[in-house]
């Protein structure tokens, strides 16, 4: 049967067909939809972990007792999961374990552009890289076979254009001959004390050498011989752009990007006059090809930054391109917080209080955007609290008061809580605001331990944030309604004055939560034209439902779109002329 699937959907299907029993992940664009699709198969236990390290540990535990396990994350998630990954390379597996990592060249939705292929080399594990959805399905199945055959975790790397592109896929059946699941003791393999690990290191090195040799005859590494003038070594999405732009070129298409099949590369190089590597981001293949003494052109003509497109590849090879007329500069259209978003009032208040906002990763990172413009740092998941703690250690008292860490519920549980324990323990005098909107919102509303449900839609005990903070020793914990501007500013300003760790928790849900009884919109508001003096106060919160309508003279008036308004009432609190009222 044929279906059009995204790369992520095809990986989930591949996992199902491979007989996977356990799938675990922390959401992260562009990887999130993989687990949102494994959950459709009742044969797979799919779950959101609190972070990527825990997700991988869940996968390792299931693998060690014999289950085929799938773990997925975005590129920066591997930084969090790197600790178990490196030692997992030494232990190897029992049931096959595949770690999918989705890179984001061009930073469509990320804080950096790291190339995860380096992790495969660093951790000494094989990595496959599919070039379309059909290969996503097939390579996922193959990855499980290789994992068990070579006793190694296997990484499967996608990029945004693989994960989020759709193409036609031929579906198969779920395999039934998978390893038996039972407790098995094998300390020499699974207890990585120095005495055991020393021996395993030799196993790891031998495994990579063997895989490099075996890779030369794997069908996923294939020579496509056409003309002899130009030969291109490439993989993943770059392969598609090369085929699009250089239809006459011979291609060595690598399905396994680590370890490289060096003998096959030598053979291919001998068949063409001029050899190129076309790859996004780092010169990962190029440097290794050069290291075995083969001359090749790569990053001389292709940027280290950003994703490739057919146009960029054509330009690199000096091919003529359509030069369409550029249009004039237009107003940009950046993303924005939703109408009624509970974060808006908090960022408005922080701006009024001239806080130095140690930010974090989630929808609320949009608090950076004008007119709110109330975020001063954003580095990685959970960093807001530790960084605030670092800043208050050294600032003079008057400036110290300005430091406020802002973090979402899911990000707090991911790695923020460690920062808070550290702050309490080391007596950091900063204010921490936990924006608890009951969901992991930015990646498309995934459940988390604070939301009350699991990925498989079972009810779960929701974490009690005030109680949790109390348990780790926070003495000053206050819960506020983020839609009440007076309360926000009063409480935040009181806690900023306090020379101790304090936590403020907001208690309104994301407006996009569809589960019944969580979010209820208020009555839509409207601007009473006769009362509006055109002071623009309501525009300071940057709500997409409020539009400035220029008037004939100097002044204009505000207008609220009743179809967009969620009735949060924040704008009406800014209006000194009572011009914003419930729509009639």
């Amino acid at each position, binding site marked *: 049967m044929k279906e059009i699937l995204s790369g992520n959907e095809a990986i989930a299907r591949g996992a199902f067909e491979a007989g996977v029993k356990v799938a675990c992940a922390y959401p992260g664009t562009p990887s999130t939809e993989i687990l949102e699709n494994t959950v459709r198969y009742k044969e797979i236990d799919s779950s959101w972990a609190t972070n990527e390290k825990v997700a991988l540990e869940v996968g390792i535990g299931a693998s060690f007792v014999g289950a085929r396990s799938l773990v997925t994350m975005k590129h920066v998630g591997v930084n969090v999961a790197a600790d178990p990954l490196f030692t997992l390379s030494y232990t190897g597996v029992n049931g096959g374990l595949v770690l999918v990592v989705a890179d984001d060249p061009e930073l*469509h*939705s990320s804080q950096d552009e790291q190339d995860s292929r380096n992790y495969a080399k660093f951790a000494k594990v094989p990595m496959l890289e599919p070039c379309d959805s059909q290969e996503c399905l097939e390579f996922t199945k193959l990855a499980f076979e290789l994992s068990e055959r070579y006793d190694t975790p296997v990484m499967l790397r996608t990029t945004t254009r693989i994960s*989020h*592109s759709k*193409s036609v896929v031929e579906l198969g059946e779920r395999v039934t001959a998978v390893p038996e699941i039972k407790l098995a003791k094998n300390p020499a393999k699974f207890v990585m004390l120095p005495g055991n690990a020393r021996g395993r290191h030799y196993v790891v090195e031998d495994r990579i050498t063997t895989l490099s040799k075996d890779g030369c005859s794997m069908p996923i590494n294939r020579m496509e011989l056409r003309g002899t003038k130009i030969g291109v070594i490439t993989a993943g999405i770059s392969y598609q752009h090369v085929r699009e732009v250089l239809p006459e070129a011979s291609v060595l298409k690598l399905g396994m990007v680590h370890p490289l099949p060096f003998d096959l590369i030598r053979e291919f190089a001998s068949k063409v006059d001029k050899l190129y590597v076309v790859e996004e981001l780092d010169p990962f293949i190029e440097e290794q090809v050069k290291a075995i003494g083969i001359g090749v052109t790569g990053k001389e003509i292709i940027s280290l930054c950003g994703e490739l497109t057919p146009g960029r590849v054509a330009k690199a090879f000096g091919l003529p*391109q359509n030069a369409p*007329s550029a249009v004039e500069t237009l107003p940009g259209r950046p993303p924005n917080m939703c109408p009624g978003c509970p974060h808006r009032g908090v960022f408005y208040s922080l701006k009024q209080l001239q806080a130095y906002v140690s930010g974090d990763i989630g929808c609320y990172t949009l608090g950076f955007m004008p007119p709110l413009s109330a975020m001063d740092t954003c580095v990685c998941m959970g960093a807001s609290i530790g960084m605030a703690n670092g800043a208050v250690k050294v600032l003079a008292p008057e400036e110290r008061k300005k430091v406020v860490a802002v973090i979402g519920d899911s990000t707090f549980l991911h790695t923020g809580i460690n920062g808070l324990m550290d702050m309490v323990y080391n007596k950091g005098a900063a204010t921490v605001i936990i924006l608890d909107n009951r969901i992991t919102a930015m990646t498309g509303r995934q459940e988390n331990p604070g939301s009350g449900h699991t990925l498989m839609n079972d009810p779960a005990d929701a974490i009690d944030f005030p109680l949790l903070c109390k348990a780790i020793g926070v003495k000053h914990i206050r819960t506020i309604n983020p839609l009440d501007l007076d309360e926000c500013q009063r409480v935040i300003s009181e806690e900023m004055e306090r020379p101790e760790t304090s936590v403020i928790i907001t208690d309104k849900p994301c407006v996009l939560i569809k589960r019944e009884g969580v979010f209820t919109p208020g009555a839509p508001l409207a601007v009473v034209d006769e009362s509006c003096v055109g002071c623009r106060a309501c525009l300071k919160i940057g709500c997409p439902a409020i539009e400035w309508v220029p008037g004939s003279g100097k002044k204009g008036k505000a207008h609220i779109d009743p179809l967009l308004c969620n009735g949060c009432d924040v704008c009406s609190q800014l209006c000194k002329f009572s011009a914003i009222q419930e729509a009639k």
Partner: protein
Amino acid sequence: MSDKITNIVLVGVGGQGILLAAEVLSETFMLAGFDVKKSEIHGMSQRGGSVVSHVRYGKEVFSPMVPEGEGDILFGFELMESYRYLPLLKPGGTVIVNDLCIAPPAVLIGQEQYPEGLALKIQDLCPDCLLVDGQNLAVQAGNARAANTVLLGAVSKRLDIDEQYWVRAIEKMVPKKALEVNLKAFQLGRSLS
């Protein structure tokens, strides 16, 4: 089957239902027996940001991205976004665009102005341009929310794909209770020339 690849670029504002429209296009082309690829960016763009989706079909499609300046059809859901992405279209390409302006944040807060006369500017640059009053036609079909299907109908008229495949794709992708309205909206769009 010829080797020709047909390139469609869908552009608009996050939340307008562009991704679903791209799904219907892809499904239609697959049902009609073509190789199909579709590419877009999720994530940040869902929060009211600019959205671009690429759909390509033909005998064998390689890159999922429409090469710059090779779009056959620009399928626009909003005027300013359509104007912004005109460079993706090939010279002499077709524009099917919804007659709708959605103000971006800087315009909402009165810092910048929404450019005037965009429909005329687009028509000047691309003579083969059809401006569609999607909202009103959707209301005629029975629901303002079916504007995308009106546009889809207008696009379908420009492609050599049998009507039955369009109808089957819509039947598959649209919820049952909204099907009648959407099929009507599709026909209204198809009747435009």
